[in-house]
């Protein structure tokens, strides 16, 4: 792997990361994540009826709805979204029956027009004697409101759950990297913490900036995947650094050279490990239904970000932290040497 001037490149990496993270925070504050997967963005009209009413009645029913919408100059797309069993509480007992829901996705009007159309359809259906006794239900869902049949997916990632999740990841990373500090030294711990925090934030920011459609609880989990993979790769990297410092031939090398050498020597392992994590997520994501694919597959971004970090951002941060750490240590040593000299003079 080619040698990088980490000292010169750190400001560039920092600028890229800060720009994306700040843009992500602003976009998240203003627009939130693009949670269109669990929040329908269109107005919808549901016509729900007993699926045993017969084909003719079914056609009549749908014709009522479609004619009313056409007369009101409302464009629509039709789909049968549900065939399901309902249990009704009648006289204290439960009776199972089958229902069908035809959903019209509306456009070309406003909420007032849609509500009026809905009322008109309901009135027309109520007036139609052939359907008496099995009155269909008509529901209107305004733009952005959570639909009954989508609501299950509405998230658990906003509000206190979101903030607690973010704090949980941060505290978890701190505790884990206290261990890294204990094992590999302060510069490795500090740089690892910065890298983990960066990866979590950077991943979440990418989802906010690129407006990738997600279930609203998911970005937190993608950030979590990112933090976990980042910590995993960092341990490998820290292990390389320790090996370099343990070797008497390379122990006295400058921090930048050590960081770059560890990066060059460990990139294959890091790439292999990240690649395997990516394969696991890709296979689990791709072999699924459409809903679960949309949930799991974007987590691959949470694996890609730590690869960038471990190759370029992390080593650059480590080089700077290690250099500062060495400087401080040298200052401390000088003070000690001074006192010793004084003592020698007195003798």
């Amino acid at each position: 792997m080619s040698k990088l001037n980490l000292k010169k490149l750190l400001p560039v990496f920092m600028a890229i990361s800060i720009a994306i993270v700040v843009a992500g925070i602003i976009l998240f504050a203003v627009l939130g994540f693009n949670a269109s997967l669990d929040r329908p963005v269109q107005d919808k009209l549901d016509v729900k009826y007993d699926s045993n009413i017969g084909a003719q009645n079914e056609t009549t029913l749908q014709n009522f709805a479609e004619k009313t919408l056409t007369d009101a100059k409302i464009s629509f797309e039709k789909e049968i979204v549900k065939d399901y069993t309902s249990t009704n509480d009648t006289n204290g007992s439960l009776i199972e029956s089958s229902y069908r829901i035809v959903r019209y996705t509306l456009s070309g009007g406003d909420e007032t027009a849609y509500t009026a159309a809905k009322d008109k359809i309901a009135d027309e259906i109520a007036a139609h004697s052939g359907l008496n006794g099995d009155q269909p239900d008509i529901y209107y869902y305004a733009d952005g409101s959570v639909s009954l049949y989508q609501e299950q997916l509405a998230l658990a990632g906003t509000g206190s759950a979101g903030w607690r999740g973010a704090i949980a990841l941060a505290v978890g990373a701190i505790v884990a990297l206290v261990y890294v500090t204990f094992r590999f030294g302060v510069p490795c711990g500090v740089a690892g913490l910065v890298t983990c925090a960066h990866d979590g934030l950077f991943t979440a920011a990418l989802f906010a900036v690129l407006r990738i459609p997600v279930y609203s609880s998911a970005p937190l989990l993608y950030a979590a995947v990112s933090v976990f993979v980042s910590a995993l790769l960092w341990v490998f990297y820290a292990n390389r650094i320790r090996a370099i410092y343990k070797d008497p031939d390379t122990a006295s090398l400058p921090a930048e050279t050590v960081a770059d050498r560890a990066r060059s020597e460990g990139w294959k392992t890091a790439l292999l490990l990240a690649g395997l994590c990516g394969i696991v997520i890709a296979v689990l994501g791709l072999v699924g239904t459409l809903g679960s694919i949309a949930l799991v597959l974007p987590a691959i971004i949470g694996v890609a970000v730590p690869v960038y970090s471990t190759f370029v951002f992390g080593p650059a941060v480590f080089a700077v932290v290690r250099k500062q750490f060495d400087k401080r240590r040298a200052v401390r040593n000088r003070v000690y040497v001074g006192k010793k000299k004084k003592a020698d003079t007195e003798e």
Partner: protein
Amino acid sequence: MNKVKSAICFALITVVIAGLIFMCSAMFPYGHSGRRYNNILSMTDKDAQYGGLTYDDGDEEYDEGKAENKERYYRGGGFVAVYYPEGVISEKEYHDNLAGYETDAEQQQKYEEDYRKVGAFYFEKDLVEKDGDGYKPTAAFEEDFASSLDRLKTRFDSLEMANVRVSVRDKYSVAVYLPSVGATIENSELLSVFGYARRMGEFTVAAGTSEDAATELTYGQKEVSAGKYEQETIRDYIKRVYAYNVGSVSAVGVDFTPAGAAWLSTQTATAADGAVSIYFRIGGETVASVSTQEQITASTIYLSKTSAVAYTAYEARCLSAAMRTSMDTEGEALSFTVGEYSFEKAQFGDLALILLYVAFAALAVGMLVFFFVRYHGLAVAHLYSFLIYLLLMIVLVWAIPFLNLNAWTVVAVALGGLLLSVCNALSYENARKEYALGKTMESSVKTGYKKCFWLIFDLHIVIALLGFVAYFISLTQLSVFAFTLGLGAVLSGLCSLAVNRFHWAMLMTFTKKPGAFCNFKREEVSDDE
């Protein structure tokens, strides 16, 4: 370890693994009463959005006419109930009721006069006011409805269950979604669960020989600071209400304060002469009661559904949440009536969980193919370690109450498995290098492990720390993912550093050519050297 000991150990481990595989995957009927042996995987709680087998897909022999067998198939999804505020009914219910008075024109007319149409609903006439040609709800109703809705949301939030949702539908009806937890929820249980939550209003406790004759607990004044008094509340008598589970039996526990315990003792002092009942009411309706024929001197009582029937876990959880949230809210609010119940299929489809299993199996097969090609017989050691890891993870996910099976649990288990595979491969590669230098297999394994021990140890500790700490702070799906990954890291570490090495040592006793067995080769030395 000699060959005989190794063979015994290997056989025992094989039997244990086979037993665990049987427990985790086998499912079959037995006996003549339609009983079924359920495997651990089928009994594990699943996220409601991931459908597995629907009950219709099951063995018809056991479905036919046997509802209790149908319940045993996991189907995902959950239950939706539509709540209407008191005094409001759906258009359908209005027409159905009206049709019921078909033979009595007077009653029909009276019924029509009592209701006014507002949007998709019919409101009792007192709840609406004229609005142009039509009607609109009064401001007081709107206010009460908003307050009741808040209480309903708080009530379901306090269940602290994933996927529970409360949303307003068509302005004045509320749809509540409860996930189907496992496969055991039955219609009667569902009716109770939705029924407990619908009651709003003040929480009161009464005691007496019958419900009508019961006298309610009255609140006095309490001194809050020198010379300052304020009205007592139910919180001065009841400390907490909670679901209490012992095995498959659940109850609602009520802890009284000393003042509450004193009241309870006084009220039940005459219980020996005739049974005294304690009634717990929300908005004036009794939601639970307990009868005693002895004076109660304890400060905690446990409520069951009836004297002979215990609550289910779901019922106890929902009832205690309803009682608890009512205790902390003051003033009257609109109660709800429960209109329609329906079962909603899993949002990710009926096959979502099966496909996750398939994906996991594909990854496992790919990993094993690599190990068998690269390490020949040594791959058996890894296979055994991996199986032990996987089977223990399945058992733990089933046994730990707050864990459930969803895409993120599977991702966490798979990442833990990946960690185990990588660490095993790392130790094998280190041993391979040592063996190539001409060392014996025993020495190669020892040195190989020694070289990578701390790296493997560090990797697992860091992931486990991160997972467990994140679990303790976070909520919902993240906590499940983090905890499962932490658990996976611990098991992976044990399997990699201890179990795998033990298997390796055992396997080596069965072969006379360990190098060929493990596909390890000596470094070729040229004759010149």
